[in-house]
């Protein structure tokens, strides 16, 4: 594991430990607002940090290399998510700790992550110039259907009570995230067993946690509840894994180019 990856893990552990400590200290009290602001800041730092590390990985490739495009798209998607986190953080700040409504402008930014990551995966697949193996297709379809069913299952309770706009946004989250996961599996299946697959496994774990975070988020927002510490930690964990994927990929490319 590269030094950068170790640094990412250390930083993530520090940020999470502080979050858990603050939550334990302020839960069910008036001071909970400190935790809420800290959590917003953590979402911004982790997503922007992951975006920066993806951008840094992008910069080691030549302008004509499609791997550069792939990491560039990934970086842009994360920057959009980060912009959404800033919007939500500002809303919370201006409304004495109240959570932003759902759906809201921040959701446009959050959802923009998905098409950019999908474009990144397409660029990466093109960069490899290799077809997806049969077992890769089987895994991709299985993951897509599994994620879709799981997403619908998690949100089933909320569906009965929500308005049509919420329903559409929730369905977009579920479908986009399922596509995202399936495409990540497809890209990783080309590289199974290789050194280059390592960053993709990290990215895949990150995207799966991201998907779980989104599913919990849509559920709690639709039934008008706060997310709690678990939801607050899922996205930073997801971005932590994506950041490790970026640093691992950078280390592999630097050592072998």
């Amino acid at each position, binding site marked *: 594991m590269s030094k950068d990856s170790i640094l990412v893990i250390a930083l993530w552990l520090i940020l999470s430990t502080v979050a858990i400590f603050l939550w334990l200290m302020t839960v069910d009290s008036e001071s909970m607002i400190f935790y809420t602001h800290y959590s917003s800041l953590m979402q911004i730092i982790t997503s922007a940090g992951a975006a920066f590390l993806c951008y840094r990985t992008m910069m080691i490739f*030549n302008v004509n290399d499609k*791997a550069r495009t792939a990491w560039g798209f990934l970086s842009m998607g994360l920057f959009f998510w980060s912009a959404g986190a800033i919007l939500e953080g500002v809303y919370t700040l201006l409304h004495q700790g109240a959570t932003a409504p759902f759906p809201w402008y921040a959701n446009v930014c959050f959802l923009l992550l998905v098409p950019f990551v999908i474009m990144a995966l397409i660029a990466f697949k093109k960069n490899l*110039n*290799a077809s997806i193996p049969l077992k890769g297709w089987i895994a991709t379809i299985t993951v897509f259907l599994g994620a879709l069913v799981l997403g619908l299952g998690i949100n089933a309770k909320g569906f009965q009570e929500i308005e049509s706009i919420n329903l559409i946004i929730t369905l977009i989250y579920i479908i986009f995230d399922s596509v995202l996961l399936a495409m990540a599996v497809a890209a990783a*299946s080309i590289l199974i067993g290789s050194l*280059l697959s390592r960053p993709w496994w990290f990215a895949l774990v990150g995207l799966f946690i991201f998907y779980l975070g989104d599913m919990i988020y849509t559920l709690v927002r639709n039934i008008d509840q706060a997310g709690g510490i678990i939801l607050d930690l899922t996205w930073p964990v997801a971005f932590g894994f994506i950041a490790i994927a970026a640093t691992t990929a950078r280390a592999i490319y630097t050592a*072998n180019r």
Partner: protein
Amino acid sequence: MNKWFNFQFLVLLMIHQFYVSGDQVLPFKDIFVIQILGMLIARKFSGVAHFVIGNKPDSIADVWFNGGMVINVHYINLTGLPALKAIAWHYEGKLELVSQLLYNDPLAHYSHLVESLVKDAPPDMINTCPMLMNTFINHVKLKPLKNSIFSLSGLTVFGEIGLGHSLTNIPRKNLSEKEFWNGFLYLTCHGLVIVSYAKSVGLSVQKFQDQLIDKMKTLMGAHIADTYKDKLWQNIHQKWANFDKEPDPIYGTSPYQLWLHQMQETSQQVGTPTLQKGCFESVLLALAPKNAKVIHHFLN
């Protein structure tokens, strides 16, 4: 009447197609034209060997064969033995073989001309084509050499080849360097022994490919490595239709050069180009000095 004429024309065309079959125009390198003729003699080739000498488009030579015997040679405005003399020691160009049934009489004194060509060749002739030192020599058949001035040296070299031998490792016995090379050239120019790069350059290139694919497997996985291999052979077959694992020795080193260049080009078509470039360079650096020299020679 018109229909009958068309039918006759069609039948004649079919007969012509049956008896005349041309191969691709393919490059040859690091093998003397006279040695190529020796191989065609050994194969009892009938037809025409079209040469483009030294890759100059207007430098065209044609050699006609009947059952492994040279019927005639034509090169620019020369015919017969002078034409043969002019092309004999060129070792790079293009070659197209057109199989055809020819019934003309063989060229008189061909064997004596080859003898005089070998005798008159400068002592460092072999050095004009240094890659020849990497060839592997195989028997074809022993013909009586008693009328030749090279009988003794030819038989000595022939006797030392055994089941096949690397040219540089053939024991010289009591032959001088000049006698050894004369004997060797005489045998190859008559098609009594065949020079091939398959067990020297071919093995080096094969080893390089294996190491490259192993490195690709480690770095980018078996799927990318397999895709690369498939694409590589697809690219090679586009440029050299009948390329086998052991290409026809008549073309010298050019099939191996093509193989290596395609390996380099294909590495930019499959897998991440940045990593592929690194892969290629690291395998080149890890080669044993002897193999590295050969591989670098063809890549430059």
